[in-house]
């Protein structure tokens, strides 16, 4: 386990180095002065600019400049937003939790809807229900998310009036920002309307989370289906059924556990996909998350925000990957021991 951890850690460090290198080079590729692109200080006075040049070591060679940049990042200094002149790291800290919340809820929905459906399809392999589930999942996978989002608003918000169409919570509720994750903040707050706020926030998250969940859910359906079919064809399942275990016992005790392990590996991969979908969805549902902020920044040519936003988002996705790897390793002892070329 130690070696496994060390390997992941070194992978993390090298990937982060590459990412920072990329975002550092972006400041030269974007139009304008590199120091201003890095710091976002568009209104800096000459003396401030001189100070910035010194901080970012622009006089020295490119390696020194890169390390100066790394130092800033490690200290949490991501510069100022060119558009609003606010501190980017603060903005990100306020916005990232909202995206995490939305993505996690969407991931849960995708898993709870996709995996059982996939299992059902596998159990009924080559029967009509299998075909229906597969074709529906194909359809769900092909629907573009921006269209689905607008359609969902049209049907569920405007025509049926069941669910709200925009934002994280009704503006009437004043919830103090503590963790940034709305549900936790509501529970922590001392508002007399806690439960009204909670149900309101729940109503607000349903539509965007479901829209995001559609595409990953279809992938989970197919993953779950394949891995279940694989498991059901293994000899230990045949042995179990020869032993006289009932069908239910076979599925719930043996098949599901083993099939799930294979899926968990893919959850991490799907998360990157899901965050991308979430970015578009945040725009449609005016969700105050980092995706919407990043898209607005691109729109405003706010280079500092684009750079830092990309860095933070990719870092976040990478951390999730590593975490799922750990979970996978914890659940499946085989994974820990795999050496190069051993499979």
């Amino acid at each position, binding site marked *: 386990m130690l070696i496994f951890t060390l390997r992941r850690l070194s992978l993390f460090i090298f990937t982060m180095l590459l990412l920072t290198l990329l975002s550092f080079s972006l400041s030269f590729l974007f139009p304008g002065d590199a120091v201003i692109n890095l710091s976002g200080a568009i209104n800096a006075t000459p003396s401030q600019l001189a100070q910035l040049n010194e901080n970012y070591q622009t006089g020295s060679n490119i390696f020194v400049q890169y390390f100066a940049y790394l130092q800033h990042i490690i200290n949490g200094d991501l510069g100022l937003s060119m558009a*609003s002149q606010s501190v980017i790291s603060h903005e990100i800290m306020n916005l990232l939790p909202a995206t995490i919340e939305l993505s996690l809820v969407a991931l849960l929905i995708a898993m*709870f809807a996709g995996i059982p459906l996939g299992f059902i399809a596998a159990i009924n392999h080559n029967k009509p229900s299998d075909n229906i589930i597969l074709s529906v999942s194909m359809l769900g996978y092909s629907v573009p998310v921006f269209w689905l989002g607008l359609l969902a*608003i049209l049907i569920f*918000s*405007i025509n049926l*009036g069941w*669910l*709200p*169409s*925009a*934002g994280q919570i*009704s*503006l*009437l*509720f*004043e919830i103090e920002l503590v963790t940034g994750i709305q549900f936790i903040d509501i529970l922590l707050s001392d508002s*007399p*309307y806690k*439960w*009204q706020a*909670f*149900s309101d926030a*729940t109503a607000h998250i349903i539509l965007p989370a479901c829209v995001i969940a559609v595409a990953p859910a279809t992938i989970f359906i197919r993953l779950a289906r394949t891995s279940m079919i694989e498991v059901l064809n293994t000899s230990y399942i045949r042995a179990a059924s020869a032993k006289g275990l009932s069908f239910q016992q076979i599925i*719930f005790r043996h098949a*599901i*556990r083993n099939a799930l392990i294979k899926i968990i590996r893919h959850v991490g991969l799907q998360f990157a996909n899901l965050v991308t979908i979430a970015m578009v969805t945040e725009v449609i549902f*005016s969700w*105050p998350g980092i995706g919407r902020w990043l898209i607005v920044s691109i729109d405003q040519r706010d280079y500092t925000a684009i750079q830092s936003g990309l860095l933070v988002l990719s870092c976040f996705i990478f951390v999730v990957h590593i975490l799922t790897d750990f979970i996978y390793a914890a659940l499946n002892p085989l994974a820990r021991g795999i050496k190069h070329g051993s499979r």
Partner: protein
Amino acid sequence: MNYLKTVIGVCFTLLLLSACNEEGKLSLSQRSVIYCSEGSPETFNPQLVTSGTTIDATSNQLYDRLIAYQGEKNELIPALAKSWHVTRDGKKITFYLRKDVTFHQTDYFTPSRLFNADDVIFSFNRIIGAEHPFHLTSGGHYPFFQNIGFNKLIDKIEKINDYTIRFHLARADSTFLANLATDFAVIISAEYGQKLAKNNTKHNIDIMPIGTGPFKLKEYRVGSLIRFYRHEAYWQTPAQMEQLVFDITSSNTGRLTKLLAKECDVSSYPIAHEKITEHTDLTLESVTALNVGYFAFNTTKAPFDNVLVRQAISYAINKNVLLETIYQGHAEFANSILPNSSWAYDKNTKTQEFDLTKAQNLLAQAGYPDGFTMDLWAMPVQRPYNPNAINMAKLIQADLKKINIDVNIVSYEWNTFLHRLSLGEHQTFLLGWSADNPDPDNFFTPMLSCSATQTGSNRTFWCNQDYDELIQKALKTSNINKRKQYYAQAMDLISNEVPLIPIAHSKRYQARGKDIIGKIMAPFGGISFYQVGKSTINESSLNEKAQQDESITSEDIN
């Protein structure tokens, strides 16, 4: 599997719990109203701006004035001043103030005394007195007051006692009282000013406002929301709603969606009017606002310094088409800058014809038989007086093509646009004017007078001595028939000289849920949520209300 069960279990319990409302109590949403507004305010002090968005968000919510308008005739009624007296020569105006008015108590300020004469002096001296400690805070621009020449008009403001105040005017001015009742002439707290000056945080006076109005500011997030709480100790009966939230939604479709999805109770400038009227639980209201949308020339730049060219263009523009396509019929044809509903409007003002041959002849006379190329600046934002200036510019481009004038359409971001206009970089432009008070002078002076060329609100830079004389005479007389005559002559002068081509007087629209009762819009000035309440739907009374609102427009001041 056990994990899974626990997680599912927890989720269900949470959902169940979330369904539990505090029964018995009115829910928060029944005691609050959400207004989807079209933009962020620039400041929280209406003295500093003329922008409608800022006025809507601040003026009638946070503040009161000495006197106010009431009713269909726009009579002046007492507000913070319980009565007033004007001397016979019209130069001394004395106000007797109310003694029971409290300022807002908020997280950032607790008033220790009631409203008195010091606050009135503080508020008005800030505008007129360069030596006032707050005069230059926030830039020292008071566009409305500078346009009407407020500092030259007022000799001094005298405090007679704690609750009596006298304005000494340099000359009689029949619009003075009307101007004091506008959205801009608000009363701010002198005590708050002193506290800020002591703490060296003067700029907060316009960011964290303290007023006497029916609501107080609780929270403002730029580009996102403004939250107001009810001012419990308001000097009139407190507002019905405990909380008022402005949900800042700049996209038109966004506001429509939120309205249809019941996320806003009231929406500003709605689109898709049919869609709204189709819904049984929504209503659409309109008032013909006192405004004008126009196409104007920079009369200092060739070839537009030539009156023949200006006349030629005025004959070449098909206003009826503009009215149909841009305003979609939700506006009135403009014959002059003054809307027909104003009492000073002269019914004999001639209607501008659409006549291409006349236009071509005039152009030939002016020395441009083969036409020329010009820039047309179209404003980038939607305003009540012009819902889509870019499209209007395209139509005008097509119209002028017929008399061989090539039009380049130019547009900048809104603030840049206004700034460059005031510098006079343009040739021609599309813009408009919304009245701040029902007095006709509010159209004539700020739009076309010589003094307004300096303050930047007369972007035609047209300065005509006869015109200025006429509107000055109109101001000095209190005989209403004489005033009307002077204004008729002024309108005549405008239609001969054509510094601008008035296009339309639009209606201002607003949509709301039927459960929202009470008047919000007025034909001029900002909206007010003071009288707004929520009720179970009572259709008949609402329809009556809507009809009343509609009728204000036609009978307005007549």
